[in-house]
């Protein structure tokens, strides 16, 4: 039977501690939309997306009202478009426009899957898609793009890293009037996952069912508030408190996912057990680390505290839902986290420390603003570094950095909303060009003799 304490705790989590469902993401396979004629293929894509997701927003809003829990974003992920567009043998920008139109027609916030998987090399359609990304992202509002350049099984495609360095820069340059926002909608992955509900990296893997529902939860504020009640607990107790809180947060995700799947008549996929921050006050992962006992996020001890947080979130969440997946872990996007923004502005949080943090948490160097004069080779080298961490540690890593065209360290880019604002962070000025220009494939790592 329910007791008053439990009821009031739930109300408090939602009202005061920013507990919410970050996203309900509908994954839609586009494999049946392939056509040699690009206009016909785009019509099929538009028709399938609007048919499958027509009721998504209405159902999500109904659930939000009924359960009294905010559902912040409704999203769609589709099969990596390079697979669909390969048959057309031309620039696939029209697919991005069709996706954008479909997303607007059904009223979702974002649509992901303008993607290519090139971890071992470029197949038909991949190069055309990657080269069209800057144009596609500048012409659309809702479309998000991702490229997978490496994996533990295949190693890292250094040619793809080099190309992506250039593409990231072009994305920023093409959207300079919109605070370089194009680059914020593009993620470069290593070990990308097929069922990720979070943007900008969501796509619907080829092994997934035709249509399905994935849910991403949030709730850094709830974890911080729970820890604040025990300032003197030892670190084992801290891990326990995080586990218990994560369990409760994840139960919400499971309930919402199962209900949405039933009402939409679509199978339920996974809950992504992620602590996803927003720039709102009290919704910060950095503030959890500070609550654990760091004066400021980014100082010595940050990696250890984050490792504990990330692990405890998963342990608590695993039992709370039928199936977990996606990226599952604590996110550390700099511009989307009030505590990270402050730490970066103060100089305590640097890109080197962020890189170390990505070795123990989900996902990677995320929403980091770098100087506008950063070379394409330096961006490519950052991508290669981050992919190496993912490859060796058998985890997903990603790079989503935004070159702030015309800006220098000390200035900032501001997008507002969920994307927040980010200070321009300093990078090394020495060139990695000769390394990047070598091209080729970094071989996959050993899986024995671990050290």
């Amino acid at each position: 039977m329910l007791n008053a304490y439990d009821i009031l705790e739930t109300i408090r989590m939602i009202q005061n501690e920013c507990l919410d469902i970050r996203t309900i993401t509908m994954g839609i396979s586009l494999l049946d939309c392939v056509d040699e004629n690009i206009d016909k293929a785009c019509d099929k894509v538009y028709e399938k997306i609007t048919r499958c997701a027509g009721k998504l927003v209405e159902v999500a809003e109904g659930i939000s009202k009924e359960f009294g829990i905010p559902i912040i974003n409704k999203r769609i992920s589709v099969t990596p478009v390079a697979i669909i567009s390969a048959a057309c043998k031309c620039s696939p920008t029209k697919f991005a426009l069709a996706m954008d139109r479909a997303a607007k027609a059904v009223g979702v916030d974002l649509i992901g899957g303008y993607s290519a998987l090139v971890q071992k090399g470029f197949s038909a359609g991949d190069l055309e898609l990657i080269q069209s990304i800057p144009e596609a992202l500048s012409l659309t509002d809702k479309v998000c793009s991702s490229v997978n350049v490496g994996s533990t099984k295949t190693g890292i495609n250094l040619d793809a890293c080099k190309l992506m360095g250039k593409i990231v820069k072009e994305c920023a340059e093409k959207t300079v009037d919109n605070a370089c926002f194009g680059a914020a909608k593009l993620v470069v992955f290593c070990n990308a996952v097929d069922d990720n509900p979070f943007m900008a990296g969501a796509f619907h893997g080829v092994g997934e069912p035709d249509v399905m529902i994935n849910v991403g939860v949030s709730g850094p504020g709830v974890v911080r508030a729970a820890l604040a009640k025990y300032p003197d607990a030892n670190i084992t107790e801290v891990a326990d408190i995080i586990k218990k809180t994560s369990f409760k947060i994840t139960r919400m995700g499971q309930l919402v996912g199962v209900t949405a799947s039933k009402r939409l008549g679509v199978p339920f996929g996974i809950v992504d057990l992620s602590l996803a921050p927003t720039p709102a006050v009290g919704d910060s992962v950095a503030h959890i680390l500070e609550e654990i006992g760091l004066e400021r996020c980014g100082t010595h001890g940050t990696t250890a505290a984050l490792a504990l947080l990330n692990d405890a979130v998963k342990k608590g969440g695993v039992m709370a839902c039928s199936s977990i997946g996606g990226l599952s872990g604590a996110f550390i996007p700099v511009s989307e986290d009030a505590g990270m923004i402050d730490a970066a502005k103060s100089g305590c949080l640097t890109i080197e420390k962020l890189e170390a943090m990505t070795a123990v948490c989900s996902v990677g160097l995320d929403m980091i603003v770098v100087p506008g004069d950063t070379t394409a080779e330096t961006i490519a080298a950052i991508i290669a570094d981050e992919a190496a961490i993912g490859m060796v540690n058998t985890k997903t890593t990603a790079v989503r950095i935004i070159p702030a065209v015309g800006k220098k360290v000390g200035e900032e880019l501001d997008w507002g909303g969920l994307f927040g604002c980010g200070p321009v962070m300093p990078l090394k000025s020495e060139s990695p060009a000769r390394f990047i220009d070598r091209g080729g494939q970094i071989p996959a790592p050993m899986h024995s003799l671990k050290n």
Partner: protein
Amino acid sequence: MRAIITVIGHDAVGILAKVSTRCSEFNANVIEVTQSVLQDMFAMIMLVDISKLNKPFAELSDSLAELGNSMGLSVHTMHEDVFNSMHHV
């Protein structure tokens, strides 16, 4: 199907009466009420049956929130499943 209505705010005359009148207008049957007053803070939790509502649940929820606003109270109406799934394994 049952829902839980929580009412929190400064104590005043007629809170219980007004909330239960609004429930009856929607044909929501009140099953159980617990309330406490600590100093002048009022907290009430109401369990109501919503299986025979004469209007959509969302309208009941909005209507109660509006009633709360007009009285300076915070009123939340949530499906019982939310609490059951969060607090029971």
